[in-house]
């Protein structure tokens, strides 16, 4: 026992001694290392040798081994990074500071290392953990949200949604919340209940009214959720401008919708559809299919057209379905405006699209070809008037009733020029011709007085109509009451002064010239010098006018002597007064005329120069102003004053007259529409033939 005890004691002692020796050696090594470093550092200041660095590293390792590595302080990857950086840092520390500062420094390096690690991981963890805590705070927010959902719930309840799902949501909230919102909830419940009740009632009422027609009268009363108007409200609404404008707009739309003839839902497989109209020869007119003429619309308004005569007609250039008619006064209605223009729409049969007024009879009117909204007119008072379809019924502009403009009735006017530079040229029966700009009607831009050239007994000239050629807006023809037609210049030019050119006179008519029309000349051959004139001497005449520039040289007679009288190329006698004649805007050989017997005649000079290809009278479908008058005046009431072609297609003609009814006809393909080349040359040949005949006759 003792032996073993002794042995153990010895062993312990030996171990102690060993430990002490180890301690001593360690102490010694530390001292030597420190001294070695302090010695070595000055020798190589900036560049430590790798061996020395290794040694110091070893030392560090040792130190670490002694002090004991903090567990988990170094990760497997970090020493590698640390090793590369540490030597320099240690040496620089050595350069600057004393020996004993090294251990804390190195441990400081370890601290840095550790800190870097914590920085890289810990923040993530803490942020993650901290998030959970604010969650509790969010509950208060959710409380706020819940109140708002409760609002929306009561709202959506109105839409008839079942609230069962939402009823659960309050139970999820905390008890405190519950307690707080209990009162509110009770209130909500009340609202909800009442809403539910209302909805149920509504549904019940709706079902009742839809199912039970008999009881619907009472059911609809409850069902109808909208307020009803009292008499006062109703009157206020009905007299408001809003209502008037709405009715104006919407009834127009409605009438157009109702007047739409074609049924787009037509099923041709069902039932026998009538034989196509084009297959049957047209009753009264007969003839070939392509030359048929058909009445498509009549316009007359009980309120406004009554006892008025149509003084002019015109199609809109922009909207081919619109046709305007100007009217004279209604002698039996002194309180209505004397002058009237109605714009009719081919798609709205019973009512004008627009109504315009004037204080004096409107004698002529037309759409401005350069501005689709503007309508210009000439009045019996001598005023030139301008209406705008965007404005009210009164003219937006009018010329003053002073000496600077017209003081006599304006029976004829035209707009000449181009899109950007155009003028209104108006002509009154005292021979005054004025030029106006559309922007300013307060004063004429041009003022010209037409006087009869010398051979006439009096200087006075009474032009009834003027006409401009397509090509030249500075030159025009004026038809007069005595029957002659004179060329006129707007401006002074070589060989001729502004005004009537006395050297040429187109004589032929024995009575007032009612209408003049230049050939529209839109084709391959220029026929722009052909003019048609209509007169109350029961004839229509075709003229070939001399170009204005050539009148001087070609005229051998000296100025002041008798004029060079030009005979018509062709004179077509008719059976009645001819009030108006117009070339077709597309067909070079076709023209139309209206006469005192109420007939519209279509002529094609390529076909025949002695009889019209078509003759038709407006039907009596609309009761005109004279419809109820005794039949003794029968021929009077049918008289047609004016006609106009639709300019774009040349398929429609509008006519109107004494009875105030506007009638629109549509002509067949041979009288309007596509034009063939030979038609132009045909007219040209005819003109040459007529010219030679004329020359032969003259000589």
């Amino acid at each position, binding site marked *: 026992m003792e032996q073993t005890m002794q042995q153990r004691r010895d062993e312990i002692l030996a171990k102690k001694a060993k430990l002490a020796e180890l301690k001593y050696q360690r102490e010694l090594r530390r001292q030597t290392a420190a001294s070695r470093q302090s010695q070595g550092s000055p020798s190589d200041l900036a560049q430590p040798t790798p061996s020395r660095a290794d040694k110091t590293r070893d030392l560090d390792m040792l130190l670490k081994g002694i002090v004991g590595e903090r567990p988990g302080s170094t990760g497997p990857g970090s020493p590698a990074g640390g090793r590369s950086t540490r030597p320099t840092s240690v040496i620089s520390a050595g350069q600057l500071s004393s020996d004993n500062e090294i251990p804390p420094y190195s441990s400081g390096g370890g601290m840095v290392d550790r800190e870097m690690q914590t920085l890289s991981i810990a923040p993530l963890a803490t942020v993650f953990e901290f998030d959970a805590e604010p969650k509790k705070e969010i509950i208060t927010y959710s409380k706020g949200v819940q109140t708002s959902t409760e609002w929306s719930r009561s709202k959506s309840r109105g839409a008839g949604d079942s609230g069962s799902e939402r009823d659960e949501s309050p139970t999820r909230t905390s008890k405190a919340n519950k307690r707080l919102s209990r009162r509110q909830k009770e209130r909500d419940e009340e609202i909800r209940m009442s809403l539910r009740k209302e909805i149920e009632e509504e549904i019940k009422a709706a079902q009742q009214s839809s199912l039970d027609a008999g009881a619907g009268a009472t059911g609809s009363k409850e*069902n109808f959720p909208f307020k009803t108007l009292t008499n006062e409200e109703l009157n206020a609404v009905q007299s408001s401008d809003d209502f008037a404008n709405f009715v104006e707009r919407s009834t127009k739309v409605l009438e157009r919708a109702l007047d739409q003839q074609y049924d787009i839902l037509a099923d041709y497989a069902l039932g026998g559809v009538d034989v196509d109209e084009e297959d049957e020869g047209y009753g009264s007119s007969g003839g070939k299919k392509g030359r048929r003429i058909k009445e498509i619309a009549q316009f007359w308004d009980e309120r406004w057209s009554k006892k008025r005569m149509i003084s002019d007609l015109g199609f809109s250039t922009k909207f081919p379905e619109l046709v305007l008619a100007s009217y004279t006064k209604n002698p039996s209605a002194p309180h209505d405006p004397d002058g009237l223009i109605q714009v009719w729409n081919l798609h709205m049969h019973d009512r004008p699209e627009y109504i315009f007024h004037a204080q004096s009879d409107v004698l002529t009117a037309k759409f401005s070809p350069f501005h689709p909204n503007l309508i210009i007119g000439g009045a019996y008072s001598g005023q030139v008037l301008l209406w705008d379809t965007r404005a009210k*019924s009164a003219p937006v502009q009018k010329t003053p009733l002073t000496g600077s403009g017209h003081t006599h009735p304006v029976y004829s006017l035209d707009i000449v020029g181009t899109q950007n530079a155009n003028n209104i040229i108006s002509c009154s029966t005292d021979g005054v011709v004025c030029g106006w700009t559309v922007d300013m009607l307060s004063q004429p831009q041009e003022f010209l007085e037409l006087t009869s050239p010398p051979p006439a007994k009096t200087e006075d000239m009474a032009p009834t109509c003027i006409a401009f050629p397509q090509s030249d807006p500075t030159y025009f023809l004026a038809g007069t009451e005595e029957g002659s037609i004179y060329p006129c210049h707007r401006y002074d030019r070589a060989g001729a002064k502004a005004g009537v050119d006395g050297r040429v006179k187109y004589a032929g008519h024995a009575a007032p010239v009612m209408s003049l029309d230049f050939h529209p000349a839109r084709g391959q051959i220029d026929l722009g010098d052909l003019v048609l004139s209509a007169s109350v001497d029961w004839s229509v005449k075709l003229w070939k006018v001399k170009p204005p520039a050539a009148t001087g040289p070609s005229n051998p007679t000296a100025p002041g002597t008798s004029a060079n009288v030009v005979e018509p190329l062709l004179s077509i006698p008719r059976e009645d007064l001819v009030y108006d004649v117009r070339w077709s805007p597309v067909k070079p050989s076709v023209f139309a005329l209206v006469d005192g017997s109420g007939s519209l005649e279509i002529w094609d000079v390529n076909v025949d120069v002695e009889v019209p290809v078509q003759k038709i009278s407006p039907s009596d479908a609309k009761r005109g102003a004279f419809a109820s008058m005794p039949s003794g005046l029968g021929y009077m009431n049918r008289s047609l004053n004016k006609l106009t072609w639709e300019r774009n297609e040349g398929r429609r003609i509008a006519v109107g007259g004494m009875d105030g009814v506007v009638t629109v006809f549509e002509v067949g393909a041979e009288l309007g529409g596509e034009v063939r080349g030979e038609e132009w040359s045909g007219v040209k040949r005819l003109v040459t033939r007529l010219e030679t005949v004329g020359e032969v006759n003259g000589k």
Partner: protein
Amino acid sequence: MAQNAPEETLALLARISQKPGVQSTLVISRENGAIVRTSGLISNSSTANPNSTLPASLENAPDSYSNGRKESGIHSAEDVASIVWSFVGAAGILVDGLDKEDEVKLLRLRTKKNELVIIPDPKFILVAIHDTPPA
């Protein structure tokens, strides 16, 4: 355009209602569906004149009209007004869904028996019920 006096404005509506084929017309307020004017529709409250204004008051007894309605197939103005009003609303939602900046201008609703032409305006709605052309 003529600035029409109220009676002329109403005459325009009367004209529409007298056009051949037109069964009934109705003007309702866009805002709340209140009936402003009606013709050709039996109303709970209006008197015999079909073109008269319609102050729909609650105290009138509607019983006398029940039989007539059943036989002729004419609906009560309130029925038509509420149905059309909601129809216009639905159409508005449809158009809104397609294009936010668009707007309903005209509704033509063809049925087997007739056609409804509905013209919505910012403040009013005009409705006409008319016979379709025989096809």
